[in-house]
């Protein structure tokens, strides 16, 4: 088991490396990029940048310095703001984004699995068709259409919930709509996936064995089919994380939530190169980390992997 974990961790390193290197190279080498002289905003910022990046040194030294700073959690100064560093901005936004993202992920897993399993058990009946239609809706109506529509219906027209903002961070009402908007596409994908994997699992020969033992349907499902059915869903959680992060950019924008996504969009619009790069690397790390957790979880759930 431990060897599997180590193998996965080692396997994740190249990905992380590629993300950082690509970002670094883009920042340094793109014509018209931030270090092309004559484009830099104010003298103070320029001084900050020169100080932080040692632009007078050769490229490879700059690269190693960059790696070293990153390893210490230092993402460098912001390109447009002289008051905050990138690290400070990320630290401010991250708790909010994390709460939003994790809640949406949890909701998506619970509701998605429930819907998918329900559809599979009522295969080709009305309930199943409803599940299929629902999962299609989440896939064809993207976040950036769904989020405003939800605001319009529940925030503006019915006025059941706040149409935007994050409250003081402890008010549930502010979180409901954003979490739902963020979770919907993942609910659909998970429902779709778990429905088909449940149907497939129910046709495995060992399910017949379980029935032959006299186990009631409930036990056959919970103990025997669910294990096989959950694996494709688990491996989907990696891509789902990437999807949630992408979606959170939209949702934070639509609901004016002070998370990383908002800073990211503002930075991209204002061409705050260092902040955009920092956030990309940060997001990259989160995705790599989640993929790692998912891989390990998969190894735990499937005894054929890892153990002899």
């Amino acid at each position, binding site marked *: 088991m431990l060897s599997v974990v180590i193998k996965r961790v080692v396997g994740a390193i190249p990905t992380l490396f590629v993300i950082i290197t690509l970002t670094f190279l*883009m920042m340094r080498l*793109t014509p018209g990029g931030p270090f092309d002289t004559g484009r830099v905003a104010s003298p103070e910022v320029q001084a900050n940048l020169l100080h932080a990046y040692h632009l007078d040194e050769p490229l490879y030294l700059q690269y190693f310095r960059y790696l070293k700073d990153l390893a210490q959690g230092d993402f460098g100064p912001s390109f447009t703001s002289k008051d905050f560093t990138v690290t400070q901005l990320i630290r401010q936004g991250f708790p909010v984004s994390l709460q939003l993202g994790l809640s949406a992920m949890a909701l998506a897993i619970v509701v998605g699995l429930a819907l998918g399993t329900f559809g599979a058990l009522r295969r080709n009946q009305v309930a199943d068709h409803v599940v299929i239609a629902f999962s299609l809706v989440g896939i064809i109506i993207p976040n950036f259409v769904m989020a*405003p529509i939800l605001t319009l219906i529940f925030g503006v027209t019915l006025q059941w919930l706040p149409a935007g903002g994050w409250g003081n961070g402890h008010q549930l009402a502010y979180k409901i709509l954003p979490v739902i908007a963020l979770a919907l596409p993942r609910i659909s994908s998970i429902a779709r996936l778990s429905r088909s994997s449940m149907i497939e699992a129910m046709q495995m020969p060992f399910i017949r064995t379980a029935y032959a033992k006299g186990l009631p349907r409930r036990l056959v499902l919970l103990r025997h089919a669910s294990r096989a059915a959950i694996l494709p869903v688990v491996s989907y959680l990696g891509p789902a994380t*990437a999807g949630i992060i992408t979606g959170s950019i939209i949702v934070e924008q639509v609901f004016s939530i002070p998370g990383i996504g908002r800073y990211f969009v503002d930075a991209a*619009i204002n061409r705050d190169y260092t902040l955009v790069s920092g956030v990309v690397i940060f997001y990259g790390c989160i995705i790599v980390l989640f993929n790692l957790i998912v891989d390990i979880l998969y190894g735990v759930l499937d005894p054929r992997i890892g153990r002899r």
Partner: protein
Amino acid sequence: MAVDNGWRRLRRNPAAMGGLIVLGAIVFLALLGPCISPHAIDEVFWDRISAPPDFDAGFFFGTDANGRDLFARTLEGARVSLLVGVSASVISLFIGVTYGATAGYLGGRIDNVMMRIVDILYSLPFVFFVILLTVYVGRSLSTIFVTIGAVIWLDMARIVRGQTLTLKQREFVEAARSLGATDFRILTRHIIPNLWGPVIISMLLVIPDAILTESFLSFLGLGVQEPNTSWGVLIGDGAQNMMGAPWSLLFPGAFLAVTLLAFNFAGDGLRDALDPRS
């Protein structure tokens, strides 16, 4: 042979045929947009700011917050979105087919390394790199489809590689090799021309992906810029303006959703038709 069979299966699949017909209709509307819509896309009607749909005056979808006709703008959005989808997928087609066919054909260690690179790129959050690119390179329409195309070729490369691996073992390739054909010639004359089936299927998957990415960027203001428009731009404007004028959100949103649905059905149907095993 297999092609006829595929056609017959496709024609018997109502969802897929429906999808293809809807796609045809959307392409038709997009191309003929300027001829069909009574108003120009940038004409400002000061007396009709955020006005609801009005059939008599020819404002079928109403107007936006700047008093411009939404019907004309939605059709223009369709042109841009489809253009982005098609160009990005053509770019990804070139990269993906070249990369995938090379990896599959050469095989062995080279194939391993090449596919490992694809795996790594696959796990990257590619939308962020598109954003990064638009930040560095600037936000023009051509940047957008080149960057989108440059990051969504991975699926194509995987599919093409798999197909190449099986093609490589077929008799006609063996025959060409025994006649002394070079690797390059075998690849370009015998392998790539036989890849069209899986390639068409993956095109149908890549186009909606590209359209979605473009809309995402444009919604955030990072994509297509005024005075150009696209569904993403319209949905973004509509979202800002939805309290007074919900139609400005709903019409472009509906077009996008219907297009994605049609691609979904057509893609699934085509896959079943060409590859009944999966």
